[in-house]
């Protein structure tokens, strides 16, 4: 019954082909806009390549054995309890590969997540999550010139203080292309997770904590998706980018959707911020 090997071979082969073809029909990682994103994607592909080789080799040996050493009457198996040198080789070689994989990650992880390694920010805002929306607090355009803004804003976020001229938006993340962004992430009720798939950033929001998050839109493929049209004085969204919740937060978890708007420049962003502030003041009265 050596043909059982065929069932295994076909299933494994279909899976290998599927993995190889999926990106061609667009079933791959979403486009990346962040400067560190290609590093993450490259590490992903490095692991995919290494595990892929191991996968194909081990499955091939298993299927070969099933075919070649299928029962035949009169044959006797080789009488062996193991092979010392083989054991050492197949322990040491994977150990080296795994250590290589592990240490290859450290740099990228430190750059993206370590607070001490986060670059100076051009922009800062606070995201406060709740069931089932993202409330975003931007410092006013006037405060954007303050060189100490990030520090004072971090303190405000920590102490739950607000300023009268803050600009509040719900489910809207506004940044500009190439900007370095610092977010102070909080939640009012349960765990949520701030996930921007195109910026390869994810961070849980934890009740009682204010967590700094860094990301940028400075990747080589980054493009603005929120374009100001001076003639009509309106903004146009050219491509939808999304903010998703990646930690179960209740029945509405799946629709805790925000939008990411990337402006073409800081000037464009400031223009929008002033516009949003004006809108906010108009509704106050």
């Amino acid at each position: 019954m050596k043909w059982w090997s065929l069932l295994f071979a076909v299933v494994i082969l279909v899976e290998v082909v599927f993995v190889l073809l999926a990106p061609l029909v667009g079933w791959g990682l979403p486009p990346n806009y962040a400067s560190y994103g290609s590093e993450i994607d490259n590490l992903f592909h490095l692991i995919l390549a290494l595990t892929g080789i191991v996968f194909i080799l081990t499955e091939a040996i298993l299927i070969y054995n099933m075919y070649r050493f299928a029962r035949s009457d009169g044959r006797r198996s080789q009488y062996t309890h193991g092979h010392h040198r083989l054991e050492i080789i197949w322990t040491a070689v994977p150990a080296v590969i795994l250590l290589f994989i592990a240490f290859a990650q450290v740099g990228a992880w430190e750059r993206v997540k370590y607070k001490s390694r986060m670059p100076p920010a051009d922009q800062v805002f606070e995201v406060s999550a709740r069931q089932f929306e993202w409330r975003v607090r931007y410092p006013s355009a006037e405060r954007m010139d303050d060189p100490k803004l990030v520090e004072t804003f971090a303190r405000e976020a920590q102490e739950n203080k607000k300023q009268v001229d803050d600009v509040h938006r719900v489910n809207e993340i506004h940044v500009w292309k190439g900007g370095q962004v610092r977010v102070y992430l909080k939640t009012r009720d349960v765990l949520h997770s701030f996930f921007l798939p195109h910026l390869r950033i994810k961070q849980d929001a934890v009740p009682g904590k204010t967590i700094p998050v860094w990301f940028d839109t400075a990747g080589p493929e980054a493009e603005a998706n929120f374009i100001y049209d001076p003639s009509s004085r309106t903004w146009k969204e050219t491509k939808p980018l999304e903010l998703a919740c990646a930690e179960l937060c209740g029945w509405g978890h799946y629709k805790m959707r925000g939008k990411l708007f990337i402006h073409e420049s800081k000037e464009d962003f400031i223009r929008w911020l002033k516009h949003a502030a004006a809108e906010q003041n108009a509704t106050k009265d």
Partner: protein
Amino acid sequence: MSAKHEAVTHAHPELSFLRKYIFSTDHKVIGIQFLISGLIFLLIGGGLALVFRIQLAWPYSEIPLLGRWFWAGPAGGRMPPETYNMLFSMHATIMIFFVIIPLLTGAFGNFTIPLMIGAPDMAFPRLNMMSYWFMWPAFAIILASFFVEGGAAGQGWTSYPTLASATMPAGEGLQSPAAPNSGLGQIFWLLALIFVGISSMAGSVNYITTVVNMRAPGMTMFRMPMTIWAMFITAILQAMALPVLTVALILQLLDKTLNTTFFLPPGGLPFGNWTTGPGGGQTLLWQHLFWFYSHPAVYIMILPAMGMVSDIIATFSRKPLFGYKPMVYAIAGIAGLGFIVWGHHMFMSGMDPRLGTGFMIATIMIALPSAVKVFNWLGTTWQANIHFSTAMLNALAFVSMFIIGGLSGIFMAATPVDIAIHDTYFIVAHIHYVLFMSSIFGIFAAIHYWYPKMFGRRMNEFWGKVHFALTFIFANGVFFPMHIFGIGLAPRRYYNHLEYDFLTHLQPLNVFMTISALLLGVAQVIFLVNFFGSLFSRRVEERNPWHSNTLEWTAPSPPPHGNFETTPVVYRGPYEYASPDSAEDYLPQTATPNGQPHPTGAPVHAH
């Protein structure tokens, strides 16, 4: 010999039906009890998955049959999102705590340990009976929880605070302001798991003691079959990790019922019209306590299957297990490292990222003992004489699929990559390749392998193979595309992925997975009919149908209460297949070496 036989029957008088099959202290009966209840819960847990898979493939569609019964009226036969949360949460809870752990340790741990080490029973037969009967309050509570106000728990099998733990202000009742099914449903969930924990704890103490104290003469530790090594190490893992989960469950239960604030941060949490009382605790504390148990639990859910599969592969390869000692060390290595990797579930949790670096390196290194095991299984089939029984096919599927599940774990362990794929379908694919494609195939293999010993009958091989082939194909159809869905960064636990522009183009994958899942469900009918139907088949008195070496095959099928006519004496390791010392291609552990007299055998211990 006949005098010995009388002594045995004398020590175990015929018991009443109730004492023999229901309140039994016989490890084999208890094992079979765990097996039957585990299979029933496998049906329930699988059924829940099929229902929510329909919603995932065709969002907001009317659910056939069930829709009319449960969600008639304003819902229009459609599944509400909180029900979806409940279904996937209970699917995972049931599969982990009521199916895989009880089947691997409860059913097969119980059945195999005394038989394979040559003992008449467990060290503590009454404790053993208690460990099964503590499952029944858990069964009752978890099933009843579906009918309480708000429905069964829907906070995921991880039940993270504060969604799971938030309570109304003191005096306002047991409902939760955070979610409708986080009130009584969550309390029932906590209670049920506490009972499961006590059951497993009693079992593991028993297994450890039995393996250490009750081995037959000549059965040294390094003559024990891999199944026993795996069960032994798993029991140690369980005994060390479970108390932490039990404590965590009790803390959350206190938060929910007595308004303590172990997991509630300072300041109250506002939910709509309600604000919880002020807290003083730590939300992240739960995750540390939970994963300190639940990561080792992942190994509890795979190591016994690895052990059983090793024995099955050696038996049907007619070849000694390749690298027996490295295999033992690998299991011990997995178990040891398993205690220092729990933080890899928490890379994105707000835990200090510097801790993440350490947890990452430990986690990636745990792939090493797993790799060693795979290479040794490949070594066992090399130059072998493979008999393709149903048990062997399922065992080979275990190896083949564990390779996928093992390798895919490395992606999440790599912290930067985890930033992207954390809590996406990639992790869902990974855990199903480990828990379904590996553990469940291991369980199918073990059922086919030990069925003749359990019942003195055989399962139908033809239908066993049909079931295997269909399950292998459809299960890959369900779980493999989840990797691709995850690489598209589709978050898990979403009621409807079509809400997101960046996910809509992946929807054909969801449809394909659901169709495969439904077919996978249908294919299991073959197994059920084969399993239960074979109970009524012709009795086969054969003791050793697979020509295997280990001790259980020297006992009658099924073995009587007390197992062996005489205490077996062990002369060699369990893997002497194709040995030049024997004309046959196997050499049982009890076969007397050439030139030595047949042992008279010591009488079975009275107990």
